């Protein structure tokens, strides 16, 4: 624990613990940790009111390195534990850290329900498309053909898209970023934090040991410009060097097609303007294989679960003034036996 309390504004390192970080050297998790510590400082987070909850996996070691409250729970169940925390203490700021195995394999159901219920949490899914901690088996997000100790001749399963799943589950906030994109990731985390309700953030994270370079086709510097589109609400969906490429709706096929502005009579007006409140648009962005859509793909706030529950409780209290426990036991039919 951290007995030293600072009166001045906290800085990134105030959110670091004295525990030695035990990820593999070069693991993408380090970069995410750094951004998180800085982001908390920047948003003025209060250490004692901040809780990190995780399941099991390399990613789920995250809480040990944050000088806040932390709960490293069991595999797949962090959303459920976090829901309990939030119901008990809505004023706490709760972050859930999970992996593609933790969150989408064993924990898929809890993820579904926490998103559907819209519990006010930030759920960060570190997607490295592999089970890191158990030494490299393929995961539900692994691409077809992934060779791993449990699929020596290559996996055959269709992977799940984390963001498509979240949208299908009824999530009200869906965003994506990349471990190494420090600025972008920080912005996404801030938006997730600002959103009241369940915020789902998929972070593409490189597992240097078991799945090195699996995202390099869109994360490597030399391809990033053309392989990524950074969406922003109200701005046209453009990308590429000089932002000369864009996404246009093909109304017949109902897909977003890539066009070059200025070529073939395409003008900027043809390019779709990002509307983060539009679920269909988000669905199409998520379905894009190239470029990969990053940023806040969807954000359509709705009442959060714990708020609604608290309202019910307050209403009930208001409508039963002065009820004490003796009244509870005496409600309904009673009779007296005289001595």
């Amino acid at each position, binding site marked *: 624990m951290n007995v030293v309390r600072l009166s001045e504004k906290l800085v990134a390192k105030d959110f670091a613990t004295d525990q030695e970080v035990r990820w593999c050297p070069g693991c993408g998790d380090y970069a995410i940790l750094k951004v998180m510590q800085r982001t908390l400082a920047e948003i003025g987070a209060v250490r004692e009111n901040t809780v990190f909850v995780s399941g099991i996996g390399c990613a789920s070691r995250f809480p040990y390195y944050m000088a806040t409250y932390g709960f*490293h729970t069991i595999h797949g169940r962090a959303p459920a534990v976090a829901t309990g*925390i939030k119901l008990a*203490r809505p004023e*706490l700021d709760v972050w859930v850290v999970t992996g593609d195995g933790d969150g989408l394999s064993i924990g898929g159901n809890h993820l579904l329900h926490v998103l559907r219920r819209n519990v006010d949490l930030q759920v960060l899914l570190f997607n490295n498309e592999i089970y890191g901690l158990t030494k490299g088996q393929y995961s539900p997000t692994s691409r077809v053909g992934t060779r791993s100790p449990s699929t020596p001749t290559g996996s055959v399963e269709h992977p799940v898209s984390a963001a498509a799943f979240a949208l299908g589950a009824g999530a009200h906030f869906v965003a994506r970023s990349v471990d190494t994109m420090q600025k972008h990731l920080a912005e996404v985390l801030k938006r997730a934090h600002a959103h009241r309700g369940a915020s789902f953030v998929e972070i593409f994270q490189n597992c240097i040991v078991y799945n090195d370079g699996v995202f390099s086709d869109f994360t490597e510097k030399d391809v990033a410009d053309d392989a990524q589109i950074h969406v922003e609400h109200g701005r046209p969906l453009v990308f590429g060097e000089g932002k000369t490429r864009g996404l246009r709706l093909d109304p017949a096929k109902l897909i977003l097609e890539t066009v070059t502005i200025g070529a073939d009579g395409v003008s900027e007006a043809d390019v779709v303007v990002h509307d983060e409140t539009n679920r269909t648009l988000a669905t199409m962005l998520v379905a894009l294989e190239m470029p990969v859509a990053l940023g806040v793909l969807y954000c359509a706030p709705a009442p959060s679960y714990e708020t609604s529950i608290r309202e019910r409780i307050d209403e009930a209290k208001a409508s039963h003034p002065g009820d004490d426990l003796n009244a509870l036991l005496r409600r309904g*039919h009673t009779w007296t036996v*005289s001595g």
Partner: protein
Amino acid sequence: MSANATVDLDPARPARQELESAVVRFAGDSGDGMQLTGGQFTQSSAMAGNDLATFPDFPAEIRAPIGTTFGVSAFQINFGSRVIKTSGDSVDLLIAMNPAALMVEIPNLRAGGMVIVDSGAFTERNLHKAGYRTNPLEDGSLDKYRTIPIDISKLTLDAVKEFGLSKKEALRCRNLWTLGLVYWMYARDRQTTIDWLSQKFASRPDLAGANAAALNAGHAFGETVEMSDVSAGFTVRPADIAPGLYRAVTGGEALAWGLVVGADLAGLTVMFGSYPITPASAVLHTLSNLKHYGVITFQAEDEIAAACAAIGASYAGSLGVTSSSGPGIALKGEAIGLAVSTELPLVVINSQRAGPSTGMPTKTEQSDLHQAVFGRNADSPVAVVSARSPSDCFEVAIEAVRLATKYMTPVILLTDGYIANAAEPWLIPDVDTLPPMPVKFRTDAEGFQPFLRDPATLARPWAVPGTPGLEHRIGGLEKDYDSGHISYDPVNHERMTQARMDKIAGIADDIPRQAVEEGGERGRLAVVGWGSTYGPINRAVNRLRGEGLDVSHIHIRHIWPLPRNLCDLLGGFEQVLVPELNTGQLLTLLRSECLVPAEGLNKISGQPFKIAEIETAIRARMEA
């Protein structure tokens, strides 16, 4: 009296016959309102000052086709002027509203017992549906009972005619007619039921009126149309019970209230995470109505999430409670292990039902004791307590809260389907006189380490998120004894494992010594029970002691750890008999802990013990 017995109009009315106790069972179709009828009769018996115990017996199906045997719903009540501890071995008076009810329930009627049937419901079609080839009212098959066929259907239709109901609605008043008759038989007051009717049907005064008319008509029928078998009816005097304010309470209710009161005594609010399952849902339903006490109920997506949310809530400083039945508790095992490892308070309620697997969800059993004590991976000790009766659930719930919060541990509370649904009169306690047991959250950062233990209880401090300066991380990996950091150190693991064991074992010093319910502290035979077998064991021992047999009844509330003196106590008996509704689970504990050659008396039929079954077993051992 023969099966053809009919009403006898002899005007020479003898005095009411006095009974020490009586068992009445109302049985009919699911739609016939038998549970309501039984409930009303219970209230009137309570008002009459009787001691009593009840047991509702629902069909497994939600709503079975009308007239089928598997759609029969029954309600049994045992009431008397003496102490009543069970809903009764066998029935003195059976009410059978249709042939299916007669078919299913007649085996419960004692030879010579009385059965009132609605002869109007004994149509060809209904007889066929119930599986009768010939009419039992006519074929002599009921000869060993006193059968009173009355065309209740017709008499009800007559009684409610003036209210202009449809025939279907009018026939729905049959249960009230019958209740009226039974009220007369036991000299009961009708007023409470009439009041209840006008409240229940506030928006349909015609129904309120019709039902009251049916009730009165049934009563009048008894009064005027004297039945040879009933003579002038019966009386059951008030029992000698402690004075005070009473209510009827089911196990489900008492448990819910006990949790709320226990949490309040601890200064906490309840966060109850659950997933519906028979017969555990009653607790969820009761608590869902207690939002005005700050109770949060969370119907989770499954039992695992329910347990985990409760753990999260405890971590955040609420009283986390989770509740289920056997199959659901099986799913919670891993999560309970997390609470063991992180040493967080957690109350886990198991309303046991017949298994294995889905088993017989509506039937009772005591077969989850092994699961409670042993059913987790690794050495993960928890405290286990059990409730013996509906009202006992209240006390046991408070005890579970006390142990969970004082020792920072999961506590498994075992109850069962019988207790959950059965009702008994309860002398309502004054909550203000219950001893407070306030929780002290850690707030002092000085010297704080999350797993440094209290030297007396071995409990770790409860440091709740939101407390400045105590930021720390916990989890299911092994922790260093001193710093609480992750540790793979072999010596430390041994020390922590031992500390977790010792903490639970130490609870034995903080619970009452095992008392003997009935009989001496030494002797020829100790009958050792736990949970819902309390009533039949106690009655059996009581009766046989009345006959002079040297037998004692010991009933265990704290299953784990066992009371300190238990093994010594058992050592004072020549024989130990352990009746259980399972194949011998407490038996395993007693034999392995005390090395006593205890023997099991096991019933695994989904039904509570009958007093006679236990008597027989005791006699067999006393004669041997």
